[in-house]
């Protein structure tokens, strides 16, 4: 068992280090193959562990001490339980697929070896994140994935935008991480430990407000990683990274870490339902908000990224409402179809020489049949059409909102479901249907390598079956750890109306998108409209950040350096030194070298001393009189 755990955990690390050995040398296929193989090994181990967990056996190991001082004791402890094993499976499956896919995708890239080093390192970090049995370990993984995300977004470091996006992602995540760190401190100082089990066990005894603070701070941490509003801008910009990265990190795994955290901390969030409501509301808002931006975007990957963001909002609604298992379930399903979607987009990009504007594509289904099938499949799953995965996971969240009587949330989510269907199929329509507009731009698309498609296939299969097949066994398994709440609408009439209604609504949206964008007609009037512009410019939030945070920070820094540090702080130090020096320069004339002056100075000294002496003598001898005179003068 332990062996399996370590295998699952460390084989990506080994793979990463192996690839890193070649990181500065020329492309070697082996640097891609070995990590992929090791990941597969990790997947197998995870799968075996899953079977154990299904049997109710969880594993907890403590590898070694990390930090121990004072009362603080932090080990490298790992736990494989129902929640983490879910995550492990998701991570290993998706990452194995992505790795293999990337062997093809990165085929011609000079940084091939380096790519695999980063990618495997990411998987390792992600596994640490999900397997850790304490907050500190979680934080290691948390930061680790951030680091790898930085390295992978900025993978093409010669591109200015890419490195900029990488830094943005890193820094924005850091902002959230600070809150996370504070949350961890809160946990430590109030419960005396960072182990999940012990900390959660202690929480019911704590002051409610403290728990609220913990919940809030930890959630802010989650918001950063999961790109929730207002820390969402980095995710779209992160699409500058290679597409496999987007698939793995910015769709399937890393961004869901926030959801994972909330799910993991369910005993705590159960204590503070008001925070839960906030999480859910924010989630719903983000779901809608991101979906609206996806509607009009003209960048294939960004559309998918916004879609991811939107789906993360769904997950947070579920998690916030206490439906942890639902959130986790959607997380899993979403990972499959969203990764698939991204990989499909990757194929398209490859075919189109990294062109991202779907308006320049069209009719690609001819040349990229398999990609078309898989992307359509994934979009259908995303839209939540029965019986694909999305239906079982996403619509469940709608049910949760409804059952919990949060009708506003429900309405928002329902509308968002429509939007989701719309933009998904807008994309599909623009890329694969209609005229072959790409010919005008001189592209000669071709299908991706066979093995890439083969390895995408499992994701396609999972996107289809994950909901239908896995739902009940998954429920049985995961609710051993998470609250076992079933969300059923007991009134069958309402249930059917809702289910069918939703399906109809979604299908209508798909149809509308398809009809509208099949021929990629650009409606000038709409585009010049206010709403379109707002959405297209992402609600002007990036500009707002640039104007009100980035620029002022840069300028303030410059002022602090040039004006404050140099002209005030340093200048005052030098000024004090200069006072002495200047005094010396100005008074050195006292030693004029002229004997007569020197003699006068001696007499001056004498006179001063004499004057002081006489004054003092007068005061001493006529002390009372002097005081009375001064008194009369009103001096005292």
């Amino acid at each position, binding site marked *: 068992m332990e062996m399996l755990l370590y295998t699952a955990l460390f084989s990506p690390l080994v793979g990463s280090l192996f690839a890193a050995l070649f990181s500065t040398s020329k492309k070697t296929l082996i640097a891609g193959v070995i990590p992929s193989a090791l990941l597969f090994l990790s997947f197998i181990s995870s799968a075996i562990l899953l079977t154990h967990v299904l049997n109710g056996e969880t594993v907890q190991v403590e590898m070694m001490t990390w*930090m121990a001082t004072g009362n603080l*004791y932090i080990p490298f402890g790992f736990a494989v339980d129902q929640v983490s094993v879910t995550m492990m499976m998701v991570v290993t499956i998706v990452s194995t697929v992505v790795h293999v896919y990337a062997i093809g995708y990165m085929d011609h890239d000079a940084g091939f070896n380096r790519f695999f080093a980063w990618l495997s390192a990411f998987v390792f970090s992600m596994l640490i994140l999900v397997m850790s049995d304490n907050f500190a370990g979680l934080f290691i993984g948390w930061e680790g994935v951030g680091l790898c995300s930085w390295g992978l977004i*900025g993978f093409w470091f010669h591109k200015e935008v890419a490195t900029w996006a990488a830094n943005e992602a890193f820094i924005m995540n850091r902002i959230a991480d600070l809150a996370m760190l504070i949350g961890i*401190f809160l946990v430590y100082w109030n*419960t005396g*430990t960072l182990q999940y089990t012990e900390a959660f066990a202690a929480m019911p005894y704590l002051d409610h407000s403290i728990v609220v603070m913990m919940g809030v701070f930890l959630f802010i941490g989650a918001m950063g990683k999961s790109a929730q509003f207002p820390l969402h801008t980095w995710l779209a910009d992160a699409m500058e990274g290679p597409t496999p990265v987007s698939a793995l990190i910015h769709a399937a795994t890393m961004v869901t870490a926030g959801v994972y955290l909330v799910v993991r901390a369910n005993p705590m969030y159960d204590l503070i339902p008001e925070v839960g409501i906030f999480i859910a509301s924010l989630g719903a808002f983000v779901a809608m908000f991101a979906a609206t931006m996806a509607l009009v975007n003209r960048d294939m990957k960004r559309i998918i990224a916004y879609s991811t963001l939107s789906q993360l909002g769904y997950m947070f609604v579920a998690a916030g409402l206490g439906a942890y298992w639902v959130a986790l379930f959607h997380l899993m399903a979403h990972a499959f179809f969203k990764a698939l979607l991204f990989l499909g987009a990757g194929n398209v990009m490859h075919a189109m020489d990294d062109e991202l504007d779907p308006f320049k594509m069209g009719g690609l289904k001819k040349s990229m049949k398999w990609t078309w099938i898989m992307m359509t499949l994934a979009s259908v799953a995303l839209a939540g059409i029965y019986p694909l995965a999305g239906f079982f996971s996403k619509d469940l969240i709608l049910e949760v909102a409804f059952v919990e009587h949060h009708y506003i949330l429900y309405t928002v989510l329902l509308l968002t479901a429509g939007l989701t269907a719309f933009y998904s199929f807008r994309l599909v329509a623009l890329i694969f249907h209609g005229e072959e507009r790409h010919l005008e731009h001189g592209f000669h698309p071709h299908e991706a390598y066979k093995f890439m498609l083969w390895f995408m296939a499992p994701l396609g299969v999972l996107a289809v079956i994950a909901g239908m097949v896995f739902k009940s066994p998954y429920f049985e398994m995961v609710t051993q750890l998470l609250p076992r709440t079933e969300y059923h609408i007991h009134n069958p009439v309402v249930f059917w109306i809702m289910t069918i209604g939703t399906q109809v609504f979604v299908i209508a949206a798909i149809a509308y998108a398809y009809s509208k964008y099949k021929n990629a007609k650009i409606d000038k009037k709409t585009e010049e409209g206010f709403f379109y512009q707002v959405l297209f410019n992402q609600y002007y939030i990036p500009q707002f950040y640039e104007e009100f945070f980035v620029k002022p920070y840069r300028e303030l820094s410059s002022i602090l350096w040039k004006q404050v540090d140099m002209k005030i702080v340093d200048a005052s130090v030098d000024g004090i030194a200069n006072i002495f020096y200047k005094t010396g320069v100005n008074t050195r004339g006292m030693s004029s070298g002229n004997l007569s002056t020197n003699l006068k100075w001696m007499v001056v000294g004498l006179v001063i001393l004499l004057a002081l002496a006489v004054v003092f003598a007068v005061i001493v001898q006529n002390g009372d009189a002097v005081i009375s005179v001064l008194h009369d003068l009103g001096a005292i």
Partner: protein
Amino acid sequence: MLEHILSILIFFPALAGALGFIVNKNSMRAYGVTVGAIEFALSLWLWFSYDSGVSGMQFMESVSIIPAFGITYLLGIDGISLFIIIMASFFTMIGIASLSPTKNEKNLIITLLFLQMTMIGVFAALDAIIFYVFWELSLVPMLYIIGAWGGPKRIYASVKFFLYTFTGSLVMLVGMLFMAYFYHQATGQWSFSILEWYRLILPETYQLWLFVAFFFGFAIKVPMFPFHTWLPYAHGQAPTIGSVILAAVLLKMGTYAFIRFSLPLFPDASVFFMIPIAVISIIMIIYTAMVAYAQEDIKQVVAYSSVSHMGVIVLGTFALNVEGITGSVFLMIAHGIVSGALFLLVGVIYDRRHTKLMSEFGGLAKVMPNYAIIFGMMMMASVGMPLTINFVGEFLSLLGFYQQSHMLTLLAGTAIIVGAIYMLAAYKKAFFGEITNEANRNLPDVNKRELGALIPLVIIMVWLGVYPKPVLEPINNSVESIVQLMHDKAITPAAKAAIPDVSKPKPVIQRAPAHAAAKHTSAHEGGH
């Protein structure tokens, strides 16, 4: 030999340096490396022989020098000083080894060996005057190094460095004399032994004044805002080796002295000044980070980042609890390793291009991939990535201070944000993008000599980030005794409350008891 190992550690380099005058110019580097290696081996032996289970002073040596005035040649180390000493000898060794060819190499190496004596002396001294002797003496070699091998403004920088720190330490000296005087008043004996002073409980007002006097000396050395402006000049002008030693070891003298002097001698004053100092630390963290962001010279970025990190160290120190102080001591080592490495790295590029302006670079990652990787790793350590050495220290420092103030910790925590901002920006400017400057097109990557210096640092950086226990444990034991001492000595209720009582059993937190207890014991077994 073991009973005099500290003396040997202190005076061996100086003696070797003096003998170095005879060695031929061409062979000087080899000589320096040999001496450095021997010294490092000795310091490792010190570590090996150190009993990490004991919290008090070890390897004590005591020779009365001026009994009439209570000055004793008193040496000893505990977990706090042990690792800084090892680091000092380590950095001298790799500093000499990685030295790029310079003029007057012989003088430089001899100076470095003298500098090493003073550095180790500072951390091994347990008598205030002996401490002061080495403390001041360390200025001289550094003055020479900056002034003779530095950049165009080297004289200004070196004199500023010297005078600034000299001034501060003179105020500190007055404080020390006062301390001795109070000891004399209390016992009728003159003594400058810190251990003797520990036994003295001073009234609060005295504590406050003395704290301030000592603070001047330490704060300028650290350097704390607003006394930090010598540092950018010193770093900016110093040769690589100078910056490395300065950042890695010399700055630590200030923070070390806080722990050795200020906290245990003036517990009440420490509590009194905790918040003001924390505020200064936060200014150091944020303000200097912003200033670092505005820099055009990559070395200045690293220099200001040092100030910023020192802010976290000071903050951790003034957490006044075991976690915080342990964290700050660990961070001293971490910062030494990381910023030392960063300065070495800057030196690498400076040797090649003779400029440190970031605008001159760009796209270096392409021409010098290994260099970029090492730099990137060190940068990530510098921004406090977990599993690197810095994180452990920063985490513990902030964690510790959180007990004292939530808001201030939140503000101080911005270190992880602002630190990332300037570091990533600098890295981006220098390493990413296209190669715009033709001069950079054919730069050679790091050579073996440089790798020889950098690889060990990388290894340590990761090793202690993943497994800090061998270092953390001795530090923790010594810190616990200091915190206990502070708690026992504290006279004001505020101080009693703020400084935890280590001897008391762990505060019981209500929870399912059996489960937790069982868990904890097993955890400990797992740890060993």
